[in-house]
Each structure stands twice: as structure tokens, then as C-alpha cells.
């Protein structure tokens, strides 16, 4: 306990030492937590520096032909003259985008000034001529999801190697590495996949659930690493993951699943016509909720951390350096606490995404073995998830159950 306390005091004092440097480096910018949480076309290793990431554009040029433009970074894209930084039209006193395209040479000085200021990294690039079809530029979150995928790949290929050698197959698992990950795998299999998908279906979806769980978990945790970024705090990335769940759900939907969506049984005709749109909407709200839940939770945690750190600068800026020093220990103590909370949330959100995916897939693949006796068995769990009137209650319950853990970290 004494050691822990001493360590805490040291960390807080380090804040006092670090504050002047941070204040000095950040004195001209406003500290913007949203900007730091958002995606970008560079890796941020401040105060060491920033690394620009390649810019790749699938674009249609002025002649209408489709081509791919590849640049080493945003700066080289700007210097090439083929792309310009989009300017805010409301500030009419600055040079217009059209003018820039026409007078490339006159603009060159501006481009160098922009690059020198470092602001070009945050600029939205538009082609000088033609239009971008899809911007395939490598972003920070893409790099970190690649990194996450790589880490997951390395961990589990190594783990699989151990099992292939017979360690854990014929003998007990050995070592922290194998025991730790085996525990998680068995947890996903026995407490997530099997209860939600049933004994006959779980094997088919277990690889997906394991992949999505560990990918999200590693991405979440990478966000807590210094200089790291949270790929899962990007709505695009969480949407992709949710889309995978959506396709797994719909492709494997049983006959009963589709029947309940398009022709809910045991209902008066009029109610059926009310329910069908609701059910169709339900197909999409589930994955959308998945995507937004993960995104919002991961973003919120980082915004809280950055805002707490930002308090130092805010106080320093408003009331002078002394106030900055004064706030630093409190701020760092809270940041430490939220960081620890974030570790918990990293696990919780990976778990929630996985268990809800399992639940949605499980609801879709479930088949009613006694279709003729549905009246008698209207309150079976499977029927509850699928049935018409109970379906609304069931879905509502599922939604509230989802909200509870989702809300918990936000509080």
C-alpha cells in the first residue's frame, strides 16, 4: 500500500515537471480533444514529431478517365499541385479554391506556408481538376487497426502453433501466454457463443466471434498505449465490424427468421402490416446500435481523458502558469483513474459487441422445431425472441439490457 502511494505521488510530481514543457509546446494552439480523438492522415508522435501517411486517391480526372493517384504524404500531394487544401468559403477574403487551381504558381508560396505551419495535415484535400471517387488514403486509425490485426494474428498463430505441437492438446496448457488466451477463448466459446447460438450452431460462428472479440479488444487497448490511437473510436471502423455481424445474421437467417420479419404469424392482418416495417427496421437498427455503441464508448473515454489533461492547459491559459501547476496533480490523478477505467471498458466493450453479435445471430438462426405447436409454446425462449407480440417486448428487453452496460462506462 505504501509503495503504491509513493508511486502515485511520483506520478503526480512528474506532472509538475512535465507541465511547463507541455504548456510551452501547446501555447499557440487551442487544445482540442475532439481533434485528437478523430482520425487523421498522420501518426502523431508529439512532441517528437508527426509522420505523414501515404495518400491514395481513386479519382476521375478532368477528361473523365479513372485513375489512381499515389503520394507519400499530404505534403507531397499538395506540392504536386494536383491537390489543394479546401478552404473555408465563409472566409471570403482568402484565395478561392478555383483561383488556386488556375494560378498554381501564385499558390505555391501559400502551400509551403501551410506545410511549414503543420496545418496541412488536417486539411481536406480536393483535386485541382476532376473529382475524387474514393479516398483510399491511409489513416491513423487504419494503421492502428492493421497493427491490431497484426497483433491478433501473431498471438493466435503462435498459440495455434503450441496446440499443434501437442501442448494443451494432450497435456495441460503451459505458461501465462497460453493459459491467459485459452481462458479468454474458452470464455467466448462457453459463455458467449454456446448460450446464445445453441449447441448445434455455435461452432459455425465461433471463429467470427473470437476474431471480432480479440480484434476489438486489441484495438481498444492500443488506444491506451502512448502515441496510440483507438481504431474503434472511428465510426467507419465500428460500422464495418457491425456490417460483418449484419451479414452473418442475414445470410444464416433461418426460414423462421424471415417468416417472422415478412409475415409475423399469429397476428391479425392489420397488426401484421404494422409490424412488418418495424421488423425490417429492426434488422438494421441492431447492427447500427452495435456500431454506435462501440464508437461512442471508445470515443467518450478518450474525450474524457483528453479533457482532463486539457484542464491543465485551460487553467494555465486562463489564470497563469501557477494555476496550471495547481491543477496538474488533480488532473493527472483523474486521468489515471479514467485510464484504469478505460482498461475495464476496453474489455467490456469487446465483450458487449461479441455477445450482442452472438445474440443477434442466435436469434436469426434459431429454428422452431415444433412449428405446428407454436400456440402452446408461445413463451419458449426462442419464440420470445422471434414471436410477434412477445418479439416487441423481447427486443425492448434486449435493448435495455444492451443499454445498461453501454451506459455504465459513460457515467
Amino acid at each position, binding site marked *: 500500500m505504501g509503495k503504491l502511494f509513493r508511486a502515485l505521488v511520483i506520478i503526480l510530481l512528474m506532472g509538475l515537471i512535465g507541465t511547463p514543457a507541455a504548456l510551452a509546446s501547446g501555447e499557440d494552439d487551442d487544445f482540442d480533444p475532439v481533434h485528437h480523438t478523430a482520425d487523421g492522415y498522420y501518426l502523431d508522435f508529439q512532441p517528437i514529431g508527426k509522420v505523414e501517411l501515404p495518400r491514395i486517391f481513386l479519382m476521375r480526372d478532368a477528361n473523365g478517365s479513372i485513375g489512381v493517384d499515389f503520394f507519400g504524404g499530404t505534403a507531397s500531394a499538395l506540392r504536386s499541385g494536383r491537390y489543394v487544401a479546401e478552404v*473555408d468559403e465563409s*472566409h471570403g477574403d*482568402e484565395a478561392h479554391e478555383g483561383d488556386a487551381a488556375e494560378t498554381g504558381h501564385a499558390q505555391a508560396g501559400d502551400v509551403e506556408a501551410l506545410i511549414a505551419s503543420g496545418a496541412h495535415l488536417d486539411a*481536406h484535400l480536393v483535386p485541382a481538376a476532376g473529382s475524387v471517387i474514393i479516398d483510399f488514403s491511409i489513416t491513423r486509425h487504419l494503421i492502428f487497426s492493421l497493427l491490431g490485426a497484426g497483433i491478433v494474428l501473431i498471438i493466435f*498463430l503462435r498459440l495455434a502453433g503450441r*496446440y499443434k505441437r501437442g501442448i494443451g*492438446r*494432450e497435456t495441460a496448457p503451459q505458461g501465462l501466454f497460453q493459459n491467459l488466451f485459452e481462458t479468454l477463448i474458452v470464455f467466448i466459446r462457453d459463455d458467449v457463443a454456446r448460450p446464445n447460438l445453441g449447441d448445434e450452431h455455435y461452432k459455425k460462428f465461433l471463429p467470427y466471434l473470437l476474431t471480432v472479440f480479440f480484434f476489438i479488444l486489441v484495438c481498444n487497448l492500443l488506444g491506451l498505449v502512448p502515441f496510440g490511437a483507438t481504431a474503434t473510436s472511428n465510426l467507419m471502423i465500428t460500422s*464495418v465490424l457491425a456490417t460483418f455481424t449484419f451479414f452473418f445474421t442475414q445470410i444464416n437467417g433461418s426460414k423462421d427468421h424471415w417468416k417472422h420479419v415478412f409475415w409475423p404469424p399469429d397476428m391479425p392482418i392489420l397488426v401484421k402490416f404494422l409490424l412488418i416495417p418495424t421488423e425490417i427496421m429492426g434488422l438494421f437498427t441492431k447492427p447500427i446500435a452495435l456500431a454506435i455503441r462501440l464508437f461512442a464508448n471508445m470515443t467518450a473515454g478518450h474525450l474524457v481523458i483528453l479533457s482532463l489533461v486539457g484542464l491543465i492547459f485551460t487553467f494555465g491559459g486562463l489564470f497563469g502558469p501557477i494555476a496550471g501547476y495547481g491543477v496538474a496533480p488533480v488532473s493527472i490523478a483523474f486521468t489515471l483513474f479514467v485510464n484504469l477505467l478505460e482498461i475495464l471498458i476496453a474489455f467490456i466493450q469487446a465483450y458487449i459487441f461479441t455477445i450482442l453479435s452472438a445474440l443477434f445471430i442466435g436469434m436469426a438462426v434459431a429454428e422452431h422445431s415444433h412449428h405446428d405447436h407454436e400456440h402452446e409454446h408461445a413463451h419458449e425462449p426462442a419464440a420470445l425472441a422471434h414471436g410477434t407480440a412477445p418479439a416487441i417486448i423481447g427486443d425492448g428487453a434486449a435493448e435495455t439490457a444492451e443499454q445498461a452496460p453501454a451506459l455504465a462506462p459513460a457515467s
Partner: protein
Amino acid sequence: MKIIIAADLLNANFGLVIWLGIIFLLLLIILKRYAWGPITSALEDRERTIGESMQQAEKALAEARQLQADNERARREAEQEAQRLLRDAREEADRLRGEEVQKTREAIQHMRDQAQDEIEREKDSALDALRAEVADLAIQAAEKILQTNLDAPSQRRLVENFIDDLPKN
């Protein structure tokens, strides 16, 4: 120059979607083929082995218990048999000894009876012999007396007195 910031929290970046879709799909395929397959099959193998081992252990335990119970019963039976044999032997021994004693007693009785008879017979013969001896002695005495002139009546009286004085037996 006020530039438009490219990145905000909610901007739609379809390039990223496509990239991540490909990455995640590859991750899923590679892991499914080379990681989850071997791992889950290994886990299932191990669980099956453990389950079977436990079943076998349980069966072995049940067998051992059965064996122990059998042994216990056999031992008890053997013990009972031994006790029964011992009891029988003792009874037999008792019976035999009783018989022996009875026989001996009878033999002793028989011998005693024989001896009694013998003694009786010896006594009778002895008495007879004595009687004859006495008569002879008497006659010799009488002769002596006669030789000393005793009259006949006196002699007779003497002899008869003498005989009367003799014990009857």
C-alpha cells in the same frame, strides 16, 4: 488561410471502410484456417480426453469399490466358515472325549466287578482250605489226646466244642 479540417468524429470515409473490410475479412479467414481451427479442435480433444479419463476413473473407482465389497464379503464368509469349523471340531472333540470317558469308566467298573468276583472266589476257597486244615489239625490233636488216654466221650465233647468255637465261616 482558413482551411477546412478533414478529420472530425463523424465524417464518412469510404476508403477506410473498404480497407478495413478487406483487412478484417483476411484476418477472419487466416485466423479461422490457421488459428481457431487448431485451437478449438485441440481444446475439444483435451476436453474429450479429460471427460473420458474422468469417466474411466469413476468406473475404476466403482470397480474398486465393488471389488472391495466382494473381498469384504468373502472375508466375512471365510471367517464365518472358520468359526463354524472350529465349533464343529470342538463339539466333535467333546463328544469323543465323553465317549472315551464313558468307555473307560465302564472298563474300570468291569475290572472292579471281576476283581470282586475273584476275591470272593479266593475267599471261599481259602475258607474251605482252612476248614479242611482245621479238621486235620483237630484230628491230629485228637490223636494226641487219645494218645494221652482220654476217653471217647470226653474226646467227642472236646472236638465238638472246638468246632463250635470255630467261626461259622
